[in-house]
């Protein structure tokens, strides 16, 4: 074992103190019939060999392409100070702050995370973190059912497909119903959540709805009628859960401002690496009256017995280690270090910096829209977007594949992510952020133009 401290003499001394002749004796409770077969794994590697192998494996991934891929995970600039600070072992090798007297660092950073995310979303309460945007959305939807004692939610078809699928998995387990709100098929609102359909679905007296879940921006990048959807939900006695992208909240209306009761979303854009899907940051927040429904840890401000200001985990009676089968969720380990990364990112970039990130992404995306339209790929939907949008490309999967050979990762083939939606059959979902350059846009547009010309022949 490469990381252990024991010498043969140490082991002998321990065996003697215990009063056994060998370590095998310590395992005498394992019945012989259940002894393990030989463990067959590759041989151990020295750090020299290990680092060579890992570098080789990492090198087999291709991260050098010009990329316009977003779809729920975004490339952003991260100030160098963030990762330097994250490498503090006092943060990353501690665990849940069960002993507050020697965990004030972790506790205060969680409180500050809750506060910053509270500023972005306008929510009164933010959990210390959930796993990712998908599981946070599922838990947020479960909260709406618990709070209303109703057993059905309506979720927009324009919410990220992974979030919808995760929500379905969680809801099936809880014997609850999740129905999808269809999208407007045509006209100026094409591709956004169909409010008329929502109103009809909410009106069914036999199947009362506990929560309505809509994402802004939607999976295909469109801005949604959040205020109207929230109003319809509330008129039917349901709660409204907004799925949000945190960078966009520097410039877009906050969930609180349009009446959301629950806010959830993916915190990855706040300084967290793409890392093939995780670890990310599930953002979950709510208005004060729902505080006892929110799953996961909460940190509050208090004082110690000497009157010094201090922080502590609080309202613990919601949690599994206290409440067991009546807990609001089974969550224990969360994504605390990712929440810390998000706080450090927000603090290092500041309110004006975050606004610049969002607005510069929007500006680059508008340039991208013009360039792609010039290359023959016009937008699929007419409505407003922030920094991500769908373009119509015939034979999108084949074109996308050929673009890879030209060194361009041309976004997402929408039919692969949402095969059940015929309106997205010939489309790519593309995004730009503050790190997208004019040169990259030119390379993409030129390559796409040539591929589309090829297709047309």
């Amino acid at each position: 074992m490469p990381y252990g401290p024991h010498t043969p003499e140490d082991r002998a001394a321990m065996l003697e103190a215990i009063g056994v002749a060998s370590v095998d004796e310590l395992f005498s409770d394992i019945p012989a019939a259940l002894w393990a077969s030989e463990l067959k794994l590759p041989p151990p590697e020295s750090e020299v060999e290990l680092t060579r192998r890992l570098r080789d494996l990492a090198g087999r991934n291709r991260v050098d392409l010009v990329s316009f891929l977003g779809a729920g995970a975004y490339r952003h600039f991260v100030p160098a100070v963030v990762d330097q600070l994250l490498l503090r072992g006092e943060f990353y090798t501690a665990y849940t702050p069960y002993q507050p007297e020697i965990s004030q660092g972790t506790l205060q950073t969680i409180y500050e995370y809750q506060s910053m995310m509270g500023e972005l979303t306008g929510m009164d309460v933010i959990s210390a973190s959930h796993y990712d945007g998908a599981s946070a959305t599922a838990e947020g939807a479960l909260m709406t059912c618990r709070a209303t004692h109703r057993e059905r939610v309506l979720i927009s078809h324009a919410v990220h497909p992974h979030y919808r699928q995760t929500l379905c998995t969680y809801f099936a387990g809880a014997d609850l119903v999740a129905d999808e709100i269809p999208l407007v098929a045509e006209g100026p609102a094409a591709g956004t959540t169909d409010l008329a359909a929502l109103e009809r679905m909410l009106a069914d007296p036999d199947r009362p709805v506990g929560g309505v879940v809509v994402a802004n921006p939607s999976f295909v990048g469109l801005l949604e009628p959040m205020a109207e959807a929230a109003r319809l939900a509330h008129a039917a006695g349901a709660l409204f859960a907004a799925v949000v992208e945190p960078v966009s909240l520097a410039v877009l209306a906050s969930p609180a401002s349009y009446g959301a009761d629950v806010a959830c979303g993916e915190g990855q854009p706040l300084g967290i690496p793409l890392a093939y899907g995780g670890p990310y940051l599930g953002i979950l927040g709510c208005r004060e009256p729902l505080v006892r429904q929110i799953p996961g840890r909460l940190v509050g401000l208090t004082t110690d017995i000497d009157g010094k200001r201090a922080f502590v985990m609080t309202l613990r009676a919601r949690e599994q280690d206290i409440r067991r089968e009546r807990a609001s969720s089974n969550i224990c380990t969360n994504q605390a270090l990712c929440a810390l990364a998000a706080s450090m990112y927000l603090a290092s970039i500041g309110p004006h910096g975050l606004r610049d990130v969002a607005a510069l992404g929007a500006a680059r995306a508008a340039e991208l829209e013009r360039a792609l339209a010039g290359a023959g790929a016009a937008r699929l939907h007419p409505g407003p977007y922030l920094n991500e949008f769908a373009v119509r490309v015939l034979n999108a999967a084949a074109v996308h594949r050929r673009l890879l050979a030209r060194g361009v990762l041309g976004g997402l083939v929408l039919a692969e992510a949402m095969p059940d939606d015929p309106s997205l059959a010939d489309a790519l979902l593309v995004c730009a952020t503050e790190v997208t350059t004019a040169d990259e846009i030119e390379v993409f547009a030129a390559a796409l133009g040539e591929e589309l010309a090829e297709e047309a022949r």
Partner: protein
Amino acid sequence: MTAAGHRLEPTIFERSRPGRGGGRIPHPPREALARIPAAQLRTDGPHLPEISEPELTRHYINLSQLNYAVDTGFYPLGSCTMKWNPKVNEWAARLTGFAALHPFAPDELAQGTLQLLWELEQWLAEVGGMRAVTLQPAAGAQGELTGILMVRAYHRSRGDLDRTEVLVPDSAHGTNPATASMAGFKTVSIPSSPDGGVDLAAFRAALGPRTAAVMITNPSTLGLFESRIGGLLDAVHAAGALAYMDGANLNAIMGRFKPGEAGFDAMHFNVHKTFATPHGGGGPGAGPVGVGEKLLPFLPTPRVLREPDGLFRLERAGERPASIGRVRSFAGNTGVLVRAYAYMRANGAAGLREVSDDAVLAANYVKAGVARVLDVPFSRHCMHEFVASSATLKAETGIRTLDIAKRLIDYGFHPPTIYFPLTVEEALLVEPTETEALETLDAFVGALRAIVEEAHADPEALHSAPHSSPVRRLDEATAARQPNLRWRGMTGEQTPCPD
């Protein structure tokens, strides 16, 4: 005191001054947002801190110094396996090829990560004696949910709809009953036998046509191997139910016991415990789940597949209709799994077996020392952790486990897990792990001995402990009665920082 800093920090909001910081992002063109309808735009805030890089750095460094961590000292937090987190793993996860890979990258661009994930699945399956593994769950509790949802899908696929109960021993982690509830089952709590093990007769009495699954932690939360596990698994299967193993305590048994071989149908692995990925102040971890033949069709999607040509790919949507579906977005906490992979590669089979041997050796060594100063209710050999109790000390001196825990802080140690398992009065659950030197283990036992002496000589010093930490015992009642869960708008209406 190993937590070096004592100076409390102002909040980052109190450090904020308008006009500080910035300069990292080029300014966008003025009209960048002109195309967005005004009703969609934000009119207020957000009021985030404005802070310069030196101030920011000192804020977080000073805060970090208020923490106790594995990197600063001994952290024998039972059930959490606070072992050493190798530094090379942090380096590995930050390699650009891993860290910059987009989760929707086409398979052909992701061959390095996909191969790593595929190999890690095989190795975990080998350690657990399982048929296959999913790496998707983000934490142990989500692994439990994944496992129990598969159990549910299995019974439903057979038209067996009456199985509404999950049996859980009363010594189980709270996540087990909470998971059963989330998966739509009723929890039936089974009392432990007097020797701390599963009560086979009680289980037999509770098992029946309504039982969907039994959730067992083995070694148990008392740090004991369930020697009756064979009989229990036979009874579970005879009743038509499935057996789920909570793998929280896997660090004791690698190479000695493979749950799948013994008959468990599913288990989760806590890579942040057994496979040395850091705990991050509460997370992230990862909770891969292994399954036997019966649950194979129900694994969450997507799985990582290897094609006949040796290339790797992710399963496509709808490819395996019996799947329970997704339990989260994308492939999993891949950055954490890179660290676990590096750890398993560095150790190999012999190393992992030695990990468990040394973890069990250290726990029994500390137990022998602690038994001379506190109650140790179960005297047989423990696995990687053991339970002590201060019940006798409390009767003699009024000093409780909480007091001992707080006083340990003054001696420079992180306290063990306290008041868990719930089945032992005044419990301390001690898990030293395999990476602590003999001198450290001796010093910990010495501190406990000194505290017990203090309990008799000067109990007041213990009631008021800790004395040397950055803050002392907290007013948790007020925190819960009048929750203050976020800083409000930098208005200065808050309790100001004392410094």
